[in-house]
């Protein structure tokens, strides 16, 4: 009992430190994980070997592999190239530019890290808008919202999806058959709503279309050879993701294999490349896994699952909707990674207790994916475009985000709920 109280306290205090941003999340996680193992060793219910087993190396390997591919692609100018291409192709028409930049950001963030995509595309977006003489704000907000939404479609699109896939044993193709159809509908609805919400800004006629037409996309591509090589490897990795089940490959193996193939082919300055890897994120994930392992070993999770036992009586579809809105509501204010990591063992516990949690995993994926759109702090991509916009004449304020992002979050979650109910049998499969 003492163990359970102590472990529960350590977990809650760590989560509070992370969510209140009193302490950097990686440092908080690191400290929390160490405390968890220390208490476990002292009370003899959790030790180093258990902690190692608790770490989900499939997720970490997948993340690291994808991070290496992004780090290789980043300096080639590929992201800049895509944004410049979108600018030229739109011929300066604001609505077309909005749709194209939104599409490009979404497609890239379906396979690569959302944050890197937004970090690299947002400055070029501002440049194109400033050249045209139009307000960049609608375009920046749209990029963040659509990349959050689009990332929900694939296994590698967003870290919560990687975590859910690893815990539930979902394959890459499961996301294409279950999440992608919902995201497609929701994405178009979000784009339509954004177009409506920004109708006044988008009605302004650009004054300098000719200047944008002088931009040459290929000139913005600094290292086409490396970009081509990384894209070939990324394409091969995506094909292997499709075939992961028949070939019996793990997601981590495919991602790490692709990363090593790209490294051998490109042969970059390895130290410089490794500096671009977000080690803090990997350490944070590992620390949370160790903490959740402690929760499990101490029996806290069992207690929680017993408390939730009456949920068995609830209609499963309603339970899914409740989880979707619960995780979306939380994701609006805090990082969706700790939310997902904390909810995963609860779902696993319910599953061990005999409940069919298949549909709940998808509800969690949609909630965690779409919820972050609601507020300026809901996702890292939102925070980044807000920071970047401070260098323009129209900085994005929290109040403005609430008036544009929150309706998008509500619409996407409502539509996802309707589709969830309509396609419920699909999610139970």
């Amino acid at each position: 009992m003492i163990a359970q109280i102590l472990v529960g306290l350590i977990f809650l205090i760590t989560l509070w430190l992370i969510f209140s941003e009193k302490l950097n999340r990686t440092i908080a996680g690191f400290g929390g994980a160490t405390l968890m193992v220390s208490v476990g060793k002292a009370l003899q219910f959790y030790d180093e070997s258990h902690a190692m087993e608790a770490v989900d190396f499939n997720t970490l390997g997948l993340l690291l592999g994808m991070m290496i591919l992004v780090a290789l692609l980043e300096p080639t100018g590929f992201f800049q190239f895509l944004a410049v291409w979108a600018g030229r192709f739109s011929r300066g028409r604001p609505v077309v530019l909005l749709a194209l930049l939104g599409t490009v950001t979404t497609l890239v963030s379906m396979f690569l890290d959302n944050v890197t995509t937004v970090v690299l595309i947002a400055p070029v977006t501002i440049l194109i808008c400033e050249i045209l003489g139009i307000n960049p704000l609608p375009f920046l907000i749209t990029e963040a919202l659509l990349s959050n939404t689009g990332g929900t479609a694939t296994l590698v699109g967003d870290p919560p999806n990687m975590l859910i896939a690893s815990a539930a044993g979902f394959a890459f193709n499961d996301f294409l058959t279950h999440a992608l159809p919902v995201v497609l509908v929701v994405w178009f609805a979000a784009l339509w709503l954004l177009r409506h919400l920004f109708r006044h800004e988008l009605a302004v006629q650009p004054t300098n279309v000719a200047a944008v037409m002088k931009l040459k996309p290929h000139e913005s591509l600094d290292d086409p050879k490396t970009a081509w090589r990384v894209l070939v490897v990324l394409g091969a990795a995506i094909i292997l993701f499709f075939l992961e089940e028949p070939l019996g490959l793990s997601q981590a193996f495919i991602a790490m294999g692709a990363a090593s193939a790209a490294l051998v082919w490109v042969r970059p300055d390895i130290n410089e490349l490794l500096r671009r890897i977000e080690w803090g994120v990997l350490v944070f994930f590992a620390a949370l896994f160790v903490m959740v392992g402690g929760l499990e070993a101490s029996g806290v999770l069992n207690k929680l699952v017993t408390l939730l036992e009456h949920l068995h009586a609830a209609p499963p579809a309603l339970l899914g909707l409740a989880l979707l809105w619960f995780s979306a509501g939380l994701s609006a204010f805090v990082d969706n990674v700790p939310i997902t990591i904390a909810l995963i063992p609860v779902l696993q516990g319910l599953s061990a207790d005999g409940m069919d949690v298949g549909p709940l995993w998808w509800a969690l994926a949609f909630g965690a994916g779409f919820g972050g759109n609601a507020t300026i702090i809901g996702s890292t991509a939102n925070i980044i475009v807000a920071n970047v916009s401070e260098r323009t004449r129209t900085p994005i304020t929290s109040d403005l985000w609430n008036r544009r992002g929150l309706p998008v979050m509500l619409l996407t979650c409502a539509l996802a709920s309707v589709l969830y109910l309509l396609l419920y049998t699909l999610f139970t499969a």
Partner: protein
Amino acid sequence: MKRKVFSISASSTIREAAALIVEQRIGLLPVLNKQGKPGGVISLSDLLKLELPDFFDLLPDLDFVRDFGAVETTRPTPNQLDRPVTMIMQPITFVEENCGLLRAYALMVKHNLYDLPVVSEEGVLVGLASRVDIAAAILATWKNVEASRP
């Protein structure tokens, strides 16, 4: 070293500083406090930062942009120009009159300066030495170096 130094008081605006630089074709404007002592400097680049949009810093390169379109015609806002110079002035790096040539040159290289304010022992601004002034004074000493024997 130039003894006739143009300077500006701490209560002047950015607009006044820019006008003086344009009128006198100078690159560095010491900002003097009420006692006539330099409290900071305004350089051409401090003023031109207001002309270059902030987001340029975020872009790894701009080589591919042939025409800046509407950016070419954007100017600082009246609010920006009517702020006091103290808002954008940089800390001053100066030397005393008796400072050695090499120290003066090293300071300019280290702080990426093209003009170096020179002050008296009392700390009052007495002149402005340009990089050319100091470099020429150093190079002039080379004529005393003996020619090497064949």
